[in-house]
Structure formats: structure tokens, C-alpha cells
């Protein structure tokens, strides 16, 4: 029952946003809102992988960047964005499968996992940065080095490349993607697969002694997370264009911050965290002399030191207590 109410609630919010926001927002703000939504999808991917799977991935930005670049390269080569979308999801998913296979089947510990995912992201960053010049092209698409691919095409009507979609439609597509990812995550967690994932997070050895192959389950959730991050990269590429910063440590750190602030082990928390923090950093970016990196870093430090449960869950608990409303919805997903 609660499950259905939550899904219905999320659907209402998203549909309302699609109907209302484009009427009130100027073009620039609407594109920004689309960016925020793509970030929310990215936050959701790490919420699954880290918050529920217990897998500390420092390199979620790698899948995000791969998704964006795969989309751009495929769309330029196909001359049509329709089939670029599955490519943008499949390439990061495959990358996650390969990396996850090495990490989980090698049974390496959290710290090693952090080291490997971080290094991989940095290598991709360096690699893409070094692809300036005409010899670096995939088919018709120049990779463009540190400039990225400014000619990243926006989505078009399926099968109709002459008809690029207006920003309102792209906003709607992004919002619906977010909703679908949320519903997918809800179903995953409700299904047996999700319960086993949570059990493995709680006690991997016990799960194995009960006959569950923890490696396979972790690989599964990691690949789902990679695919979702790829989708998010595709949405992002539609609002801006792809460039190496998508792979940067700054992005990897940000994703972790959204999930940390939103609360580990919840889905809505990181989504809200991503949107609010993006608002906040965009606003802070307009202030003179304040560097967004400083603010984000300070938020992360404070989140870890003061409210390790997550800012949003702690706030809800606090509000609940102030209202004297009995049980705090600390585990609201």
C-alpha cells in the first residue's frame, strides 16, 4: 500500500512539473531544470549502488561521462538520435559489468574498490582530455579533447533527424526518465533481488553462508547503476554538450555529496539532495568570489562529521519530533 502511494505521489509531482514548469520558466531556466533532473537520475544511480548495495563507488562520474560521450558519438554517426539512446545506456553498463566483474569476483575490499573506481575515472578524464586533434575521432565524431563535442545533437523525434525536439519536450523526457528510474528502483528493492542486495550490504558472509552468490548480486546492482548513470549522461548531453569535465573528480565528489546529504539507504533523499544542492551551487556561483568547490567540500565535511545519517533524514526526524508526530519517517524511501 505504502509502495503504491509513494509511486503515485512521485508520478503526480513529476506530471505536475511537466505541465507547470515550462509555462513559467524562461528558456535558460528550463534548460537548467533539465540539467538538475539529469543530476537527480545520477544521484538515484549511486543511491542504489552505494545506499542499498553498500558498494562504495568513487567513480560514478565515469559512467555518467561514458553515457554522454557514447550518446554524442553515436548520434553524430547515425545522424539520428533514436538508436543513440540505447548505446548511451549499454556502453556504461558494459563498462560497469567489466569493472564490477574484476572487483567483485576478485573479492577486493572497500578501500581497494575506492582506489580502483577513482583511478579509472581519472584515467578516463585524462584520456578524453588528450583527444584533441583530428586523429582522435570515432567515425564522423571528433572527440575534441578538452573542448568536448560542442556539436552534440539534441534528441530528435524517433526516426526523424530533421526534427530536433524543443527544450520543453526534452525537459519532459528527462522528468519522465527520472520517474521511470525511480519506479524501477522501487520495484527492484521490493523484489527478492533487492532484498538479497540489502541483506548482502548488512552481512555479506552470512548471505553467502545461506547460499547467495554475493558477487553476482553486487555485479547486478552495479550494472543497473552504471546503466542509469549512462542515461543521466545522455540527458545531460542534451542540455549542455559533452566535455571531459563529466569525468572529473569534481563530479564524482558531487554525486557522493548528494547521496550523503540525502541519506544513505533512501531513494527520494538523494534525488532531492541533488536538485537542492544544484540550485544552491548555481546560486552560489553567481556570488562574487565564492568558489562552488569550497562550498561543496564544506558541505561534505559537515555532512560526515555532524550528520552521518544524511541531512534530509535527520531533518525529517527533527521536524517529526518538533511536531510530536510519533515515529519519525527516518527510513522513508
Amino acid at each position: 500500500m505504502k509502495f503504491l502511494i509513494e509511486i503515485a505521489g512521485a508520478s503526480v509531482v513529476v506530471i505536475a512539473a511537466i505541465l507547470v514548469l515550462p509555462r513559467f520558466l524562461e528558456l535558460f531556466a528550463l534548460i537548467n531544470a533539465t540539467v538538475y533532473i539529469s543530476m537527480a537520475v545520477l544521484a538515484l544511480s549511486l543511491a542504489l549502488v552505494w545506499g542499498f548495495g553498500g558498494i562504495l563507488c568513487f567513480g560514478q562520474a565515469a559512467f555518467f561521462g561514458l553515457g554522454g560521450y557514447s550518446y554524442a558519438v553515436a548520434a553524430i554517426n547515425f545522424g539520428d538520435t533514436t538508436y543513440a539512446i540505447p548505446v548511451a545506456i549499454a556502453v556504461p553498463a558494459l563498462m560497469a559489468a567489466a569493472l564490477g566483474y574484476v572487483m567483485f569476483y576478485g573479492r577486493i575490499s572497500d578501500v581497494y574498490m575506492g582506489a580502483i573506481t577513482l583511478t579509472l575515472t581519472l584515467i578516463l578524464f585524462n584520456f578524453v582530455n588528450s583527444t584533441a586533434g583530428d586523429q582522435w575521432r570515432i567515425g564522423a565524431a571528433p572527440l575534441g579533447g578538452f573542448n568536448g563535442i560542442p556539436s552534440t545533437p539534441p534528441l530528435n523525434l524517433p526516426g526523424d533527424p530533421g526534427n530536433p525536439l524543443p527544450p520543453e519536450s526534452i525537459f519532459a523526457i528527462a522528468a519522465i526518465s527520472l520517474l521511470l528510474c525511480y519506479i524501477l528502483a522501487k520495484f527492484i528493492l521490493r523484489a527478492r533481488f533487492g532484498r538479497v542486495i540489502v541483506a548482502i550490504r548488512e552481512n555479506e558472509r552470512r548471505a553467502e553462508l545461506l547460499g547467495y552468490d554475493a558477487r553476482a548480486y553486487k555485479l547486478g546492482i552495479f550494472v543497473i547503476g552504471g546503466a542509469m548513470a549512462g542515461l543521466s549522461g545522455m540527458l545531460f548531453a542534451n542540455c549542455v554538450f559533452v566535455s571531459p569535465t563529466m569525468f572529473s573528480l569534481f563530479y564524482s565528489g558531487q554525486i557522493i555529496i548528494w547521496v550523503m546529504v540525502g541519506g544513505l539507504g533512501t531513494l527520494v533523499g538523494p534525488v532531492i539532495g541533488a536538485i537542492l544542492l544544484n540550485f544552491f551551487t548555481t546560486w552560489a556561483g553567481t556570488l562574487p568570489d565564492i568558489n562552488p568547490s569550497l562550498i561543496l567540500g564544506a558541505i561534505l565535511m559537515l555532512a560526515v562529521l555532524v550528520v552521518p545519517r544524511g541531512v534530509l533524514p535527520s531533518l525529517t526526524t527533527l521536524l517529526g519530533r518538533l511536531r510530536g508526530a510519533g515515529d519519525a519517517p527516518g527510513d522513508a524511501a
Partner: protein
Amino acid sequence: MDLVFAIGFQVMSGVATLLITSLGLAIIFGMMRVINLAHGEFLMLGAYAAILSAREGLNIWISMLVVAPLVVGGIGFVVERFIIRRLYGRMIDTMLATWGLSLALIGAVTMVFGNTVAGFSAPLGSFAIGGFTASAYALFLIFAAVVLLGGTWAILRFTAFGLLARGTMQNAEMASALGVSPDRVYAATFAAGSAVSGLAGALIAPFSGVVPTMGAAFIAKSFITVITGGAAMLAGTFSASSLLGTVSTLGTFATTPVFGEVMMLAVAIVLLRLLPQGITGRFFRRAL
């Protein structure tokens, strides 16, 4: 022949750079099981400390070898006091908090000094062997790596502080039962590790250039070197940086720097697959 020399020298200076830039992280990880993800920014702060004091007219060697480690050691002391100490035993949280610190430091330094590359040229000219010339400063870096490694070893092996530190590392409860305050040992260790990072940052600055974001280029390599090395921090860092430094330098030679890094990561992953506890989890277990 000259080519062999040239490559051999490049490899050695690659290894030395990796060793120097990893040692501070290794000391902190080896003694305290803390991964300091702001390590790259500690290097950056060391580089800035050196370059700024040199600009103020201080002797370049004093700026690099004295000022940089002192400044960053002091910063490390403060960081330990306000962040690390609150999170002992929570390895993941420590990594996250120091990542936050890393972002904050990049932001703060950018605000103060701007996002431009500063730099100073290698202070030592060049030398020639046969038909091949090399930077004398690279030779100095190799020398510095040897001295740093040997010095750390000697401190741990022969001094009273080294004994305390090793004792605390082995068994903190026992050490505190003997009247040693683990808090103090940890504080001193973190400050010392930070000082080494600061020194390293100053040492590599002539080659790398000085920008607020320069740490990013080093953190991943240092991290993977320390992890590949395993529990014994000095033997581990030495063996891992020798191996990975050689691989990445040769890879760079054969192709491009990026490919050198890819090869280094690939080797590290294979190695971790074979030796999940790192090199010193299997070999040199009794080493420091």
C-alpha cells in the same frame, strides 16, 4: 647505449616521483589505517608554500625543503585535530570527509590565488652523459626519494618516536596501557605524513607546475600505489612505486602518457587480483 641510459634514467625518475608523491599518504595509511583523500591538495599546498616564500625572496632550497613541509605539517596537525580524530575507526567516513576537505582546499586556494599556473624552473640546469642530456634536477629527485625513504626508515627504526609509533601501530591498547597516549602518536604521525606530502609537493613543483587543481593528477596514482604496496608501508611503497613507476614510464615511452597510466592501472588491478592484501601482504611481511 645512450638510449638505454636515457630510458633507465627516465624510469628511475618516474619511480622516484611516484615514491615521493606517495610516501606521505603511505605513512598515514600504514600507521593509522586512514586514507587521506586530500593528499593531492597537501602536495598542492606544499608547492604553493614553496613558490610563495621563494617569491618573498627566501632561498629557493629553504623554501622547498624547510618551509613547505613545516607549513603543510602544521595544516595536517590542525586537520587531524578537527576532522581525522573524530572519525577514527570509520575508514569510509574518513575518506569522505577528506574528500570534502580536498574540494574545499581546491576552492579556497582558487579563490585566493586564482586558477592560473604558476611555476618555477628546475633550479639545477642539466648534465650530460655521453650523447644524452638530462635535467640535473631529476637526478636530485632520485636522490631525494632515497633520502626520504631511508630517513623515514631510520626514524621508525632507531628513534624513540619511531618505537612509540610502531608500538601504537601494532597494538594501540597495549601502548596506551604502557602510558603512551595513542592520540598524541596519531597526531604526530598525521602531521609528519602531511609534512612529507608538503615536501613532496614542493619537490615536484618545478616539473608539474603549480595550480589549485594539481593534486588530482597525483591522488589516484598515490592511492593505488599505497594500496598495491599493502600493509608494510615503506617496503610496500618502495616495491609498488618501483613496479608501477616502471610500467607507467615505459608505457609512456612506448605510446602516450595516458596509455602509460592505463597500463599502470591494469597492472595494479591484476596485482590486486593475485595478491588481495597487496605486495607486502605476501612478500616482505616483516618489513616496515
